């Protein structure tokens, strides 16, 4: 598998087909005598921004702390939880059970309070 072409930046959907974000950063592990291997990936603006530049990552993390949406983020998905890698990356978790839903949930409180939002 070409990690950059086939995994990085791909859409991640949960077990119910709900959009969770994208594969924003890969986590690799290497043993003393073994080649590096992907063990997990991260989802979240801080992980994505850190990929662009370390200072962008720090800025994104700082903003998340400022708005109190930093708990449990970036979300780490173990490769063992990946159900399939096709056009999308399907994972065996639920969107609402992870911190990927934190910002959506926080904004929904505001959006949902307006008339005709549902």
């Amino acid at each position, binding site marked *: 598998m070409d990690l950059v072409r086939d995994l990085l930046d791909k859409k991640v959907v949960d077990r119910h087909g709900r959009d969770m974000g994208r594969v924003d950063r890969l986590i690799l592990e290497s043993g003393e005598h073994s080649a590096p291997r992907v063990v997990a990936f991260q989802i979240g603006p801080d992980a994505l921004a850190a990929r662009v530049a370390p200072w962008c990552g720090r800025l994104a993390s700082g903003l998340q702390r400022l708005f109190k949406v930093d708990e449990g983020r970036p979300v780490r998905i173990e490769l063992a939880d990946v159900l399939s890698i096709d056009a999308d990356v399907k994972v065996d978790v639920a969107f609402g059970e992870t911190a990927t839903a934190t910002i*959506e949930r926080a904004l929904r409180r*505001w959006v949902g309070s307006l008339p*005709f939002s549902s």
Partner: protein
Amino acid sequence: MGAIVDLVLGVVTSIGGFVEVGSISTAAQAGSEFGYQLIWAIAIATAMLALLTEMSGRLAAVSRRTVAAAVRERFGIHFQLVPLTAELVIDTLLITAEIGGAAIAIKLLTNVGFEWWLAPLALLTWLLLWLSGFAVIEYGLGLLGLVTLAFVISAWQLHPDVSDIGRSFLPTTPHHHYTRYAFLAVSIVGATISPYLLNFFSSGAIEEKLTESELWVNTTTAYMGMCFGGVVSMGVLVTSAMVLQPRHILVDSYEQAALMFVPVFGHYAIPLFAAALGIGCFGAAVELTVNIGYTFSQVFNWTWGANKPRRDCARFVTAFTFVLLMALGVALMGFDPLRLTMLSVALTVVIMPIVVLPFLVLMNDKKYVKDHTSGVIANGVLAALTIVGGILAVVVVPLEMFGG
């Protein structure tokens, strides 16, 4: 039957939604200063836009990916940051310019300063996006936009010399003001090939659940809709050339552009011009605003959709609301809508190669478009457009300085 209805609606609303603040101002200025001479620029830009929108729709129908989503996946975030940032800046300026154009249209009708209409129009834009689904945004505004056919009727009624117009489809050098001529030619291209249209078109294909078997609908809509839309732009240019140029009226404000309707529509000239400008600009402001929501949601894979309950796609709603507020903030700082339009159009040209280049790759990648890859001719045209776009991106800033 459903596909035929989609096709007719798609073509008709493409015509109604084609003309907005950029195309009206560039075509009106071109006509008043160079007669029919710049019709070729509209023709070429329209053909390029049709080609790109067809590809956007094909990509979406086959891969179930919009342009923004496919670019993120295929090119990664490092590449995408450039068009994403550029689009955020340009779309914000364009929303400001479109709301400004609509505000001037109301000013023409009421004589109340356009600044007073900026905030109510921004609120109306947001309310429309809050309360309506994709059909109202696309088809409702597109149908209302058919009032812009007044430009074609006006040109027709003025009985232009058809052979003169025909000859203007081939580029010729002007007798005066070479840099101004070149600037207007480049601006017409920038005003016509708006990057937001490409993602909006592909998002529409996903919203409307366009399938691979309906690609013919996409192709016909793109080519017929855009080409007829180009005729409306040409109507602006021809009317301006026949009415404003002989009277040496230069279009340095929308109020002056409105005079082009007087010979044909008499007392109704100003209200009709105001309706065409207002609806065209307001429709574009709505499309630009929702497209910001689309683009950010697709790049980061948030839940999105104009047909979804708003509470179910809170980040999508927040993205377009935030950008609309930014555009209103820029507008309230005070600006000349015509100058801002020309600046936005020039910036659009600067990013054109970055917008066009991904199509060359995506439309030849079978992972995205399966067997519907582009042919030799389309690839050749796209490659030429990328190169020409690169040259235009370099020359547009000096042209803006010396000819703008």
